[in-house]
Every structure is written in structure tokens, then in C-alpha cells.
């Protein structure tokens, strides 16, 4: 299945944000939720099972100057094996955030079902003065099953400079991924990249987790745990609006 989705958020001239483009194809369907007139909230709605091997998904997000967009999803994304012999499922996300704009990406987790082979690539470009909160949670296998293969590749640039580059490979094709250096037997992992002019203070988070200042203008929160609940305990306070990310 090949799917292309595009979301463009722009300031509506009255202090709110409107969707200038809201185009989705199954399984990447986009629905506007939340009240009109304020910040824009969009939910990703999975329109089909998967991703499955052979799927090719791409989502483009553009947040214009002064616009404020939050993207959630209604359910976890479950990467499944699909037919053997097909290439890995691919999910590419490209986002740009303009000056004075905010993008909060807080979807439900990706679950790597046994036998899946899923590749994700995320590239986010934030202009100077833009604000980003980008969260990705991963669960390595459903209850009591071994993890499928997931290769995730993330690049976040701020003001034209690369702020954060990260690849993670889990599952049967990844050497020693569950040994003590990488996940240490943990089944769940979450990360939040924060970038912009107004940022919280770095600190250790509850459980196996830390909020770390990057070398550039941003922070990374990383949490690992035996299940997604442990990751949520560490990361939810950061992504659920306890911290204002807007410049004051």
C-alpha cells in the first residue's frame, strides 16, 4: 500500500491556526479535532491494518509562521509482518516549523509485532524562533512475544544546523539490541526532542530516564522501561503541557 498525506497549518489572522491543507490517504488519514479558533489539533486515524511489509507511507507537515499545531493519533501503530519476500514497510515523515510557530507531535506508540520489518525516517527542520516537541514511543513486541525489527532514523535541525541525529535498530536483525548498552532487556522506549527558545531545565526523570541538554538549543528526554507505562510515567509530564513551550 502506498500512501501520501500532507498537513499545512497556517495562522488564520485572528490569533488562531487553520488547516490550509489536510490531505490523507488510507492508512494515513487526518482528522481535525478540538475547538475551532485556537491552536490546531489534528488526529492521525489509522485507516487500515499495518503498516505491513511492502507498505510505503509518507507524511509531510508544514507549520507556517505564527501557527500552532498539535498532532496526536487515535491508536497505537502496529507494525505487522505482511507477506514474506516484500521489502520492509517504510514510513517517512518530513516536517518544517517556521519562526514563531509550534509543532507538538505526540502520537500513540509504535508497536513492533513479532516478524515485522519496519523502517521509519523522520526529518524535522525548525527555523530560528520556532518551537518543537517531537515524541516517539516504541514497544518491542506485543504481550509475551519477541520484538519484530524496527529501524528508526531521526534528524532534527534547528536554524539550519543539525541539532539531533539518532538511529535505533531493534529486533532479530539488530546485534545485541537488548543487551546492557542499548535497551538492557527493556521492552519500551520513549524519546522527546524539545527545541526552541523556551525550554525546561535538564534533570533526571523517574525510572530509567533523563532529560538532557543537547549541544544546540534543545533537549532530549529518553526513557526506557519494562513496559510503556514506565515510559509514560517519565515522559507524559513533559509532553502534556505541564511546561509551556511558548516564549514568554
Amino acid at each position, binding site marked *: 500500500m502506498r500512501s501520501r498525506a500532507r498537513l499545512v497549518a497556517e495562522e488564520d489572522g485572528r490569533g488562531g491556526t487553520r488547516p490550509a491543507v489536510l490531505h490523507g490517504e488510507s492508512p494515513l488519514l487526518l482528522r481535525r479535532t478540538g475547538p475551532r479558533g485556537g491552536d490546531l489539533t489534528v488526529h492521525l486515524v489509522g485507516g487500515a491494518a499495518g503498516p505491513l511489509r511492502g507498505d510505503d507511507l509518507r507524511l509531510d507537515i508544514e507549520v507556517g509562521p505564527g501557527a500552532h499545531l498539535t498532532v496526536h493519533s487515535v491508536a497505537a501503530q502496529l507494525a505487522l509482518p505482511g507477506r514474506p519476500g516484500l521489502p520492509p514497510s517504510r514510513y517517512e515523515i518530513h516536517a518544517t516549523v517556521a519562526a514563531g510557530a509550534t509543532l507538538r507531535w505526540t502520537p500513540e506508540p509504535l508497536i513492533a509485532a513479532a516478524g515485522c520489518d519496519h523502517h521509519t525516517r523522520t526529518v524535522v527542520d525548525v527555523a530560528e524562533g520556532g518551537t518543537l516537541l517531537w515524541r516517539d514511543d516504541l514497544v518491542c513486541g506485543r504481550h509475551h512475544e519477541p520484538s519484530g525489527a524496527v529501524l528508526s532514523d531521526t534528524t532534527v535541525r534547528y536554524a539550519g544546523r543539525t541539532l539531533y541525529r539518532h538511529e535505533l535498530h531493534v529486533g532479530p536483525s539488530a546485534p545485541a539490541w537488548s543487551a546492557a*548498552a542499548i535497551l538492557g532487556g527493556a521492552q519500551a522506549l520513549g524519546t522527546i526532542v524539545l527545541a526552541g527558545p523556551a525550554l525546561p531545565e535538564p534533570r533526571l526523570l523517574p525510572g530509567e530516564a533523563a532529560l538532557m541538554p543537547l549541544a544546540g538549543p534543545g533537549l532530549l528526554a529518553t526513557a526506557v522501561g519494562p513496559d510503556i507505562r514506565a515510559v509514560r510515567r517519565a515522559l507524559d509530564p513533559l509532553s502534556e503541557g505541564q511546561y509551556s513551550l511558548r516564549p514568554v
Partner: protein
Amino acid sequence: MSSLATLLVLADGRLPSGGHAHSGGLEAQVAAGRVRSLGDVEGFLRGRLHTAGLVAAAFAAAAVAGRVADLDAGLDARTPSPALRRASRAQGRALLRAGRAMWSLPAFRDLHHPVALGVLAAAAGLRPLDAAVAAAHGVVTGPASAAVRLLGLDPYQVHALLARLAPSCDEIAASAVSFVHAPADDLPAAGAPLLDIGAELHATWEVRLFAS
């Protein structure tokens, strides 16, 4: 033509560049109870080799060919833990200091360790593959000798483990050199979440055997 003896000098653990003061994140994982046995050490070293080792090898190899400032910024973007950035720069500075006495080095003072390693390799007339092998080798030998001290393991068994890992070091180095001329963003970026979190916890300890 690159000199094998020169490569051995560069990769030697006795090079006075302060590497013995770092456990490569092992001390934090031992304290967390995740590494207790020789088998756990092997898992830790393999995980480290395929993440931090691949990144270090690729950046060391690329630095032999130049672009030092870009590569140094690229490692900043791949090292979210400030404790690991400090450890890498401290070892890079120490290596540059040692290197200046050994070869004629450009005037760099503050670089991440893998980039400094590439700068030394270039000054010594070595090839990118040599720098990559030295980097991959250093990523496993440093924590391996720390493992002997932290867990009281049999040094013969730990060296047998290093001998088993040597072919993997060669494979990592061979794949690392394919990125020598790639844009900095396209170089490997394999991360190890527990190394980052462990390094931040470790940095808060009042008493520790290793600097990182």
C-alpha cells in the same frame, strides 16, 4: 603506504591519552545490576560496538580525509548526553596532546575523541580504514579492561572475548569507511539509550572508579 607498526602505536592502550580513566559506560551498567558476568560483558561490548563503535569508526575514518569542524558538530548532534560529550572531548584533548608529541599535528585543541583519532591517523600517514579499526578496537578494549577491575573477571577470559570480537571490529571498520565522503548528516548515528541515561546517572555519583 600505511605502516602497521604506526597503527599499533596509535591503537595501543598504553598511549598516554587517559583512556584508562573511562569505562565506556560499563561502570553505570554494573551498578544498575545489568552486567554481572562475562556473558553480560560480551553483550554490552557487542551493543556498544554496533552503536557507539560504528559511529566512532565512521567519524575517525572521515576525519582522516578532512572536514574536521563539520564532523565534530556531527558528533555533538549524535551525543545527547552532556556527560558523554564531556568524556569524549576530554579524551579527544588528551589524545591531541599526546599526538602533538608524536607527529606534526594541525592546531586543533578541543575535538571529540573519534575526530581527534582521525586527525592523528592522518598526521601519522595512516589511511581511513586504519583510523576506523583503531576506533572500533578502542571502543571495546577500554570497557573490557574496566570490566576486569569492576567485576574481578579473569583477565584471560576477557582477552579471549576480545579475540572473539576482533572480526566484528574489522566488519564495523569496513562498513565505517564507506561513509568517508558522505555528508555529515548521512554518517552512522546508531544510538544506545542506556549508555546515555547511564552516563547522566553516573555523573551524579559522588564516588566512582571511572570518569565515565
